């Protein structure tokens, strides 16, 4: 007996269905079936994950997915969702798993912040006619003038990442996403003059050619880390935490550790890839400093080292420590950040909003006089060009986009990555599904997205009368809050609209 009623229903308009069977061919969950005796299609709602693959490819628009209106007796405390979760756990005895970012109804501060524009007294700038600089450099900045023995100013700087636009593709491992998804990200990063991030799954040998646009990750499992992996990268990221699941490790099931994934991760085929919750050699900022400098030493001090942390309650103190550990860049991942799989309860209840974390970290580093030592990258649900503008005005140097990049490639946020049967060829290792993502299409869609956002950001900068992204950085006067409490405004360091 199955207690769970299907969440979604496939609605087929039989007047339009031409029985081409493309839906049946393309559904990895086997929802659609051809009934030969009646020459018609039939759908089984139970297995539908609402990924829209069939809906999108149907040549006659004969399909749509609706949320079932099947309901429990009304109860605002015991909601249908809660009851179903208990049913699932009573059945399985296991931890509830989910994918992608926290979908629950917490405030989105970006949506309660408005952007300024020039009127009359300070002219706005037309980015189509005048120069508009969106190029940024990430890395430790010079905070003291140094002279050589002849009194000449030392112009050397710590290693920097040079980006044409303050956007990078965030860490998604080869294993959690497919070969074709990785290739798309790498090609797009190269074309755009930005960076993508290997995640903790190592770097496939085919992608070494994109190395100047590659950030390699060193995470608690140390998968795929070796000399040439570090040497080839533009920067190295130490992953301490992830916004979707702060404080816990990762687990890529053995079923996904096949062929090239196993080779790239340097672990046997079929073995579970378990990333421990902590790095077992890091229990203090001093320990972190050892790893930061081990990596710098190994790469001849030529590459910036990024330390990625999740936005948790004491993120400011942690960031301050990280800035003092010798890291060049701090990446903060907010509680809406995506994942290929995480325990549902952790994803939905652990961590804090990125807007608040960013504002308080930037302020803390300024107050301590160490903001110049590090660049700040923020991620965890950057959804649009306005989110980027707001993040930069709150103090970020750059943003990471993960979910948005996947959506550009075709992800429909069905949040079923953990099943490994992604119908869009993104979060899967099944060859038949992987080939559905043609990198020459997906890469172009990524390039288009970032190009479009760049245009929008230039327009907004111009509207504010600013001609460089650098002049917006930490410029919180360009922001106003709406519907926020005094405490929220204080933490964000912005005025209320009308003030």
């Amino acid at each position, binding site marked *: 007996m199955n207690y769970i009623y299907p969440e979604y229903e496939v609605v087929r308009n039989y007047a339009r269905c*031409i029985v*081409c069977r*493309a839906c049946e061919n393309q559904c990895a969950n086997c929802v659609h079936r051809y009934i030969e005796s009646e020459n018609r299609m039939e759908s089984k709602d139970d297995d539908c994950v609402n990924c829209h693959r069939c809906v999108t490819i149907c*040549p*006659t628009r004969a399909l749509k997915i609706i949320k079932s209106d099947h309901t429990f007796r009304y109860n605002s405390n015991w909601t249908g969702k809660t009851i179903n979760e208990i049913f699932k756990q009573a059945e399985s005895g296991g931890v509830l798993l989910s994918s992608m970012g926290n979908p629950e109804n917490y405030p989105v501060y970006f949506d309660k912040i408005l952007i300024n524009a020039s009127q009359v007294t300070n002219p706005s700038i037309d980015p189509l006619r005048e120069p508009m600089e969106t190029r940024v450099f990430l890395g430790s900045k010079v905070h003291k003038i140094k002279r050589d023995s002849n009194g000449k100013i030392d112009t050397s700087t710590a290693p920097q990442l040079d980006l044409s636009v303050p956007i990078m593709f965030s860490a998604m491992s080869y294993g959690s996403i497919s070969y074709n998804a990785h290739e798309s990200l790498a090609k797009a990063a190269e074309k755009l003059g930005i960076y993508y991030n290997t995640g903790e799954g190592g770097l496939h040998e085919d992608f070494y050619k994109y190395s100047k646009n590659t950030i390699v990750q060193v995470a608690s499992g140390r998968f795929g880390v070796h000399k040439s992996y570090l040497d080839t990268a533009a920067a190295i990221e130490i992953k301490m935490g992830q916004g979707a699941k702060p404080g816990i490790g990762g687990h890529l099931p053995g079923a996904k550790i096949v062929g090239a994934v196993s080779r790239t991760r340097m672990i046997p085929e079929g073995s579970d890839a378990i990333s421990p919750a902590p790095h077992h050699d890091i229990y203090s900022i001093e320990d972190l400093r050892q790893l930061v400098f081990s990596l710098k030493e190994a790469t001849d001090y030529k590459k910036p080292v990024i330390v990625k942390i999740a936005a948790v309650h004491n993120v400011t103190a942690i960031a301050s420590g990280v800035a003092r550990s010798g890291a060049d860049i701090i990446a903060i991942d907010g509680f809406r950040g995506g994942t290929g799989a995480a325990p549902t309860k952790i994803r939905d209840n652990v961590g804090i909003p990125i807007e608040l974390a960013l504002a308080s970290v930037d302020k803390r580093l300024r107050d301590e006089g160490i903001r110049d030592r590090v660049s700040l990258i923020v991620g965890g649900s950057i959804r649009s060009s306005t989110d980027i503008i707001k993040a930069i005005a709150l103090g970020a140097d750059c943003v990471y986009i993960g979910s948005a990049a996947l959506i550009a490639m075709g992800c429909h946020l069905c949040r079923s990555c953990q099943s490994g049967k992604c119908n869009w060829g993104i979060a899967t290792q099944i*060859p038949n599904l992987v*080939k559905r993502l*043609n990198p*020459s*299409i997906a890469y172009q869609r990524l390039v288009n997205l970032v190009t479009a956002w760049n245009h929008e950001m230039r327009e907004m900068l111009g509207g504010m009368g600013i001609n460089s992204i650098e002049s917006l950085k930490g410029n919180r006067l360009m922001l106003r809050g709406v519907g926020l409490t005094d405490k929220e405004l204080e933490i964000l360091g912005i005025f209320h609209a009308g003030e």
Partner: protein
Amino acid sequence: MKRVYVNEQWCLGCRLCEYYCAFANSNESDIVKALKDKKIHSNIRVETKGNINFAVSCRHCEEPLCVKGCITGALQKKDGLIVVDKDRCIHCYTCIVCCPYGAVSPSADGVIQKCELCAKISGNQPACVKGCINQAIVYEER
């Protein structure tokens, strides 16, 4: 000359090209009206075995065996394109037997049909190329 090529690597075997082709050759403006409850006659066909799929349509051969075999002159080569004169076809199907690609087939009314590059006529992308969801079918010079 630009031709229709299929990259087997990206062909998903969804057969949508067959339906878009049949629609393009139907003289109907609505795909449902054109194809609903009808046996489709497509000029492109997806071949599938195991995990391998690829669509096949007329190669517009340099030395077309179908044209050589045609006893009435219904099949002719014009500007590199192999075209059918339906009025001259006598349904002998010699061309169907000759074609090594299986790219010629009988249409609903019995005369033969084959890909005549709808693109060449309309000036747009061929319907199969436009409809391919994974850019497995391309129309290009090689």
